[in-house]
């Protein structure tokens, strides 16, 4: 399933399939590599990072964008914390770019984007809240996230939106932890926009090193 990806460095410590619509929370130690594989193609993977030893330090899309002077996450991008520290480095990917401005879908934002009939649908914020609750984190720990395999272009007049994806079956992203981190994933359940090709599917996560 990972034929297009290079060999992972070091022994495989985790190899799991995250079911469609489900969360996952894992620790990645400094120096280890996390690989996420888009098994069936165009499946958005919403992604948060916390310092494993001090979770008030967490991923910051704004600090990441400002430090690299670019909106998009590409090979070489450094994912930074709210205090400016490198948390993970995107050391390789077979997708041209990934999103970090689109945020996570929520029951509440779904009511704005699609109408109040969507309030009861499952959403990424529900996955994040429930996964984080296991470690005592709550709503104050929710911040704008990374969306692996999601495509959010920005046009010259500022028009932006979640559009058809540029990923495909088997494409991957490799992340090297620059500190001990807890990563929380929501395998996006959204069915009202094209971020999952209107059909949420499983993804694979491997940790090596």
């Amino acid at each position, binding site marked *: 399933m990972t034929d297009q990806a290079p060999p992972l460095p070091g022994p495989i410590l985790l190899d799991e399939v995250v079911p469609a619509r489900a969360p996952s929370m894992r620790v990645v130690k400094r120096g280890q590599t996390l690989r996420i594989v888009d098994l069936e193609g165009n499946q958005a993977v919403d992604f948060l990072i916390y310092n494993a030893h001090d979770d*008030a330090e967490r991923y910051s899309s704004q600090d990441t964008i400002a*430090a690299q*002077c670019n909106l998009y996450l590409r090979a070489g991008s450094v994912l930074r914390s709210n*205090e400016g*520290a490198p948390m993970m480095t995107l050391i390789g990917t077979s997708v041209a770019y990934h999103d970090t401005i689109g945020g996570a879908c*929520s029951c509440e*934002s779904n009511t*704005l984007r699609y109408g109040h009939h969507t309030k009861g649908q499952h959403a990424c914020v529900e996955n994040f809240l429930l996964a984080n609750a296991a470690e005592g984190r709550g709503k104050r720990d929710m911040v*704008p996230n990374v969306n692996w395999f999601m495509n959010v272009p920005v046009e010259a007049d500022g*028009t932006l939106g979640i559009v058809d994806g540029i990923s495909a079956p088997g494409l991957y992203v490799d992340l090297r932890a620059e500190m001990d981190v807890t990563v929380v994933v929501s395998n996006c359940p959204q069915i009202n926009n094209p971020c999952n090709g209107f059909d949420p599917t499983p993804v694979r996560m491997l940790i090596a090193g």
Partner: protein
Amino acid sequence: MSAASTARPQGARDHARAQAGAKVEAMPTLPATAATELPPGVAAETVIWDETIAAGGYASRQFGRGARLRLTDLKGDACASLLIFNAERPVERLNIADTLKVQWNGYLGAGRLLLSDMGRVLMSLLEDTAGTHDGFCGASNQASNARKYGDGCNHGAHPNARDRLLLGAAKFGLGRKDVHPCVNLFKGVRIEADGSTTPLVGPFAPGRQVTLRAEMDVIVVIANCPHVLDPRTEYSVTPLRATAWRGPVTAPDDPVRNATPEGLRAFLNVEDYYLR
């Protein structure tokens, strides 16, 4: 003050009291109703806050639903970084990703809404004579200011926006986890076709203004520090005036409320929240 000895409490008291009445550029107006330079039609008795925030300074303040907050870039080089919280439940706060995504646009200006993570409008932008704002790049931090200016400590000459926002939030009992991604007013960032960021930091003509309307009871935290992408090697920022006055809650026929279907639903969610 050479006559006052501060060796004993009475002398120290006299010395302290003799300092009152001094005027400096950056200070609050008390009572706020003594504010001058009000917009046409705004009565002095409705003013609830008037303060000049120093270059590198900050302030935080609570506003009732309907209040108007006008920010003035007095000398053309201010950068107002804003956090916004639901005052009665600060776990609800500005969500910049939802703000941009729901409005299908990355740029802020007159008519735009600042949305919470609960699908509600915290504040709306009523007027804007600046046109250069930024929702992408956030606040400077100690390390980024240290790299640029040699020092980024809050107690030094180049205070960073994150520490300023943290202090403003702390005055309301909030902490590190509450300092969320901010919006930067008066300094802009243009997004190029390849996604790269071009800072639009001026300096601009003095007197540019933004007027916001509180759509909920809110806490606003404002830091006035150089934009994180400001390319100048000097710590360049000028004072910011904040003036607020009471106003009516947004009416059903308000044009900002009704401008887009997504925005209207955000107002409906606010109105639903206040049914109690």
